[in-house]
């Protein structure tokens, strides 16, 4: 219990004084996760729309595999990315291991199936609505995907949020491929793991509170930007 109080007091102190390390680690957490979110969305959302409008033979199988990939354990993804990016691995020549880029790559792989799956489910409903109209209007596949992505943007935002939530709290994969290097690849989650491992619970709790606050405020911000509540209509 005293650990909890100690953590709270230390957390407020770190925040109030805008502790340099804390700010650096927080910014890096945001940088890595938001970049991963952007890349993952660019990959996952059009793919989800494509899966909805285009019929091809392996479609059902693809959707099933996509849903299954949501259960991919993040730490295993980290391990595989590590092996690929290591100097003795196939992509070692790029020197990406133990850099934020490696962390972004791992997080993208982890959240793409999640975002695509959720987006696909909502876009499928929208498509069943739009189907007759868009076919009657003689639209191309691309135009159909455009219409779905634009009109379904609120639901797609939810999918992206889910991806963000998964990524910001992830620790296993990015610990492995990032190496938790001080001033280079240390982020909130890996720093918490480190401090806990050193027995410094107060500092770990402080970082934990910051992480929660960060995740919640980004969620609130995105909700405000999309005027979900004020317009009252999805």
């Amino acid at each position, binding site marked *: 219990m005293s650990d909890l109080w100690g953590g709270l007091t230390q957390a407020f102190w770190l925040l109030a004084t805008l502790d340099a390390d804390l700010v650096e680690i927080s910014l890096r957490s945001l940088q890595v996760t938001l970049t991963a979110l952007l890349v993952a969305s660019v990959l996952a959302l059009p793919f989800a729309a494509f899966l909805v409008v285009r019929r091809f033979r392996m479609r059902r199988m693809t959707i099933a595999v996509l849903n299954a990939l949501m259960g991919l354990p993040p730490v295993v993804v980290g391990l595989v990315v590590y092996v690929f990016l290591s*100097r*003795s691995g196939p992509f070692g020549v790029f*020197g990406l291991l133990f850099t*934020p880029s490696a962390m972004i790559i791992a997080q993208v792989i982890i959240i793409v199936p999640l975002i695509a799956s959720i987006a696909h489910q909502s876009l499928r409903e929208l498509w069943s609505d739009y189907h007759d109209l868009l076919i009657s209007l003689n639209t191309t596949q691309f135009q159909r995907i455009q219409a779905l992505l634009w009109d379904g943007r609120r639901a797609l935002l939810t999918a992206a949020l889910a991806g963000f939530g998964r990524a910001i709290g992830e620790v296993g994969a990015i610990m492995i491929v990032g190496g938790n*290097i001080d001033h*280079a690849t240390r982020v909130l989650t890996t720093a918490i793991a480190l401090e*806990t*491992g050193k*027995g410094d*619970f107060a500092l770990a709790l402080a970082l934990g509170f910051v992480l929660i606050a960060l995740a919640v405020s980004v969620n609130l911000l995105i909700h405000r930007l999309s005027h979900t509540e004020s317009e009252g209509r999805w």
Partner: protein
Amino acid sequence: MKRTLIGVFAAVTLATSSLAEEMKLAVTTSFHNSGLSDILLPAIKDDLGLDVQLLVVGTGQALRLGEAGDVDAILVHSKNAEQAFLAGGNGTHRREIMYNDFVLIGPKGDAAGIGAASDVTVALQKIAEAEAAFVSRGDDSGTHKKELGLWASADLNVEEFGGWYNSVGAGMGAALNTASGMNAYIMADRASWLNFGNKQDLSLLFAGDPVLFNQYAYIPVNPEKHPHVKNILAEMLEAWLVSDRAKTLIDGYQINAETLFVFNASQK
């Protein structure tokens, strides 16, 4: 709002792409947890303009990182493993830098009575007889290998230990945490123990046996095997680590008025 965010991103990206030289050094958790790196790294940055990026892992993984060429140099404390590393052509040479010692930690009550032991072999035998809870690093690290070696020299077979022997597969800090939570015995390096924040009911019970001395050595990764490693920077760091400046910092580093490391590098 959008502009502020973009500005913040730009600031962070630019900050991380600074112009200082940088190299990757794999070090053991024992070394890192002692807190010595927090003293040395800024000094290295000041003196050499060099950003040393520390990967804090167990000795086993440090050696593997060196073999794969994912780091430029390693700093570990397991002579046999180091020599095997060199024999495999993975490093250029081995340079001793400093040593610290291992100590035996345990519950204040000391049910196994190791406080009075004459040497470490006796102490370990007492723990085994009492079947007192014991936490082992279990992670193929220098500390772990040292511990296994000590059990062997006490004529005890680790394979035959019962449930009182807990092999956790973790770094020094995490293992100490577990020992603290279980109120168990554990072998740790003195520096990590002094710097450990969650001691609870544990205290230092046995130390001083010369067998427990722990030599740290620095090995640059072999540029013939991995041409991309920053060998020049690694050599530069080595030269600094054996310099008088390093000697002063290392010998002068204390926790609670106790010296942790003893500098013992020889000038080539």
